[in-house]
């Protein structure tokens, strides 16, 4: 292993992780600086159930029309985010539990997931460029974030075998991108996962309080 890769896998990644954690903490403090409106009405439903429904909506494609009507797009979403999870897991497995990737079956599973996510990333990029409605709302951050993810998946695909002789360049690219992501993510749209719990918490609390969420059984899975 070259000294550069060793530093990237360890010191640089740890420093970047600490930076990201610090920025996230500041970001949450920033969000909580805004006042929150107090709910003053009698509840019709259960807020906790509404919050739970809203947070888990993403795993219930049958309950959301936009996912139900386009299962292919929903599948893309699942594959893309599985690829993200697998790639992030690889950034920890490679330096701290390298034995995991000595099992070829595990390497192949990771490669299939990350490879599929790479293809989905390209499809998403194509859609962002081709669909006028999506193109109109796209910013430089949207394009760059997506391109970076595609590159990250490509590097991850090549890096997971974790063999220095044949794939050190891929490993260096993978960990360099990881460090860059950790620093850049809190300032870009990729940091959306930080806000996901909050936006869903607020919406779910309101809808749960009013008895809208959880959707009634006859509403889940489509309207009749």
């Amino acid at each position: 292993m070259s000294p550069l890769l060793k530093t990237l896998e360890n010191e640089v990644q740890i420093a970047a992780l600490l930076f990201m954690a610090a920025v996230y903490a500041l970001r949450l403090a920033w969000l909580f600086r805004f006042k929150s409106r107090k709910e003053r009405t009698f509840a019709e439903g259960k807020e906790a159930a509404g919050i739970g429904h809203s947070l888990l909506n993403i795993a219930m494609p049958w309950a959301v029309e936009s996912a139900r009507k386009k299962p292919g797009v929903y599948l893309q979403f699942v594959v893309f985010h599985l690829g993200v999870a697998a790639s992030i897991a690889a950034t920890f497995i490679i330096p701290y539990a390298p034995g995991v990737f000595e099992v070829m079956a595990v390497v192949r599973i990771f490669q299939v997931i990350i490879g599929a996510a790479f293809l989905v990333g390209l499809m998403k990029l194509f859609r962002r460029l081709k669909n006028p409605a999506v193109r109109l709302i796209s910013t430089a951050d949207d394009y760059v974030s997506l391109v970076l993810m595609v590159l990250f998946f490509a590097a991850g695909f090549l890096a997971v075998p974790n063999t220095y002789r044949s794939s050190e360049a891929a490993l260096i690219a993978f960990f360099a991108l990881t460090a860059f992501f950790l620093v850049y993510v809190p300032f870009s749209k990729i940091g959306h996962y930080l806000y996901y719990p909050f936006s869903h918490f607020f919406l779910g609390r309101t809808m749960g309080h009013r008895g809208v969420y959880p959707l009634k059984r006859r509403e889940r899975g489509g309207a009749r």
Partner: protein
Amino acid sequence: MTPLATTSQKKAREEKLGSVVEGRLKTYDPGTDNAKTFVALLRKRMTRQIAASLVACVHCGRCAESCHYYLARPDDPTMTPVWKADQIRRIFKRHVDWTGRVIPWWVDAWTPVDDGDLNRLKDVVFGTCSACRRCTLNCPMGVDTALLIRFARGLLTELGIVPEGVFNVSRDQWETGNQMAVTEDDYGETLQWMREELQAEMEDPAIDIPVDKPDCDFLYVINPREIKFDPRSIANAGRIFHVAGESWTLPGNGWDMTNFGLFSGDDSLGGWVAKNVYEAASRLRAKRIVISECGHGYRSTRWEGFNWAGVDQRLPIESVVVTLDRYLKEGRIKVDKAKNPEPVTFHDSCNIARSGGITEAPRRVLSRVCADFREMVPNRTENYCCTGGGGLLSMPEYRPLRLEAAKIKAEQLRATGAKLVCTMCHNCVDGLSDVIKHYKLDMKVVQVLDLVSRGIPR
């Protein structure tokens, strides 16, 4: 861009209307830096819920196909909910968020520089969204676009940069306590007229439409449209309450449960109007408040009004359709399905279903009173807006686009094959009537009270 019409505002200033003089109703002042004030207000009024919806969007565009505007105009990318919300989000990014303040071009952050920019924003938030919240329930990130639209409307209302109809209705509600400027005499005379009709119809001189009767089981609050254009709905309610042996009353003051503050984004108007109703109930020592059939009135009085007014709820509040459902369940009224033989479908009001949580009570009632009840598809929280929501019926300048977007609703209605479309919202009655007329559909709009009243054997 629709030019900013200020004739009514000018007249209101010249007439020194109380609401204008006291600063409750804001008028447009071209002499001030409105763009700067807009940004200052945006910062000041920002809440955690709004900020979360502003930062969470990933520009995936999944909301597009949940919006009737975009579905009717698929080739116009400015019709997507995300684009509309982005017109507010860009300003937030430029002035409040982090990245946009440092490198605005990277995230397309932007700031309005003059009144023309604000007027364009007015056209977006008032003219291209009925705030139906359909996109909100379809957003994978939980972004509440309708909340953002209302927030922006509120900022523009504070500057008087609003469609003239929005100003006029706000003025009427501030000045008279009701949206349609119904006078005390009109109110009293219409109720007397309905009282006499009901007595003649029921052949019972003792039957009453009580006003300001203390210690009743409930206070019944109505929509001024019922006084102006549809007084039969009050008589229908009176008849049903009489048959059910109910103890009820209308208030002399604070009877308007509609609330233009919901549409204009003006929390102070919203809180004041809602408080009038709550205070009427308190004054008359009513045990609960029952709201007649109105979508935004229900949402405002039952849910938003307390939060706007900053008062805690003390009495139970329900929609009259929930009251009817209870009467049927308890056997307090008997109905005959044969009295309503036509095929009937039900239109869920956005404010009652998606933002209010009532979807089953009207269905239980209609199943009991109609011989042929059929669902429209989609329905309940997935139903499409009547297209008259968000106060759009008071903004004639946006009518052509509204009716174009109504294509989706028209197709939905036509597919049911029903002859009657029932709704529990006066706003939807007008919205749907417009759709039916424009798209030449062979159906009529009715309300739940109409069908229940008709279903009770004479």
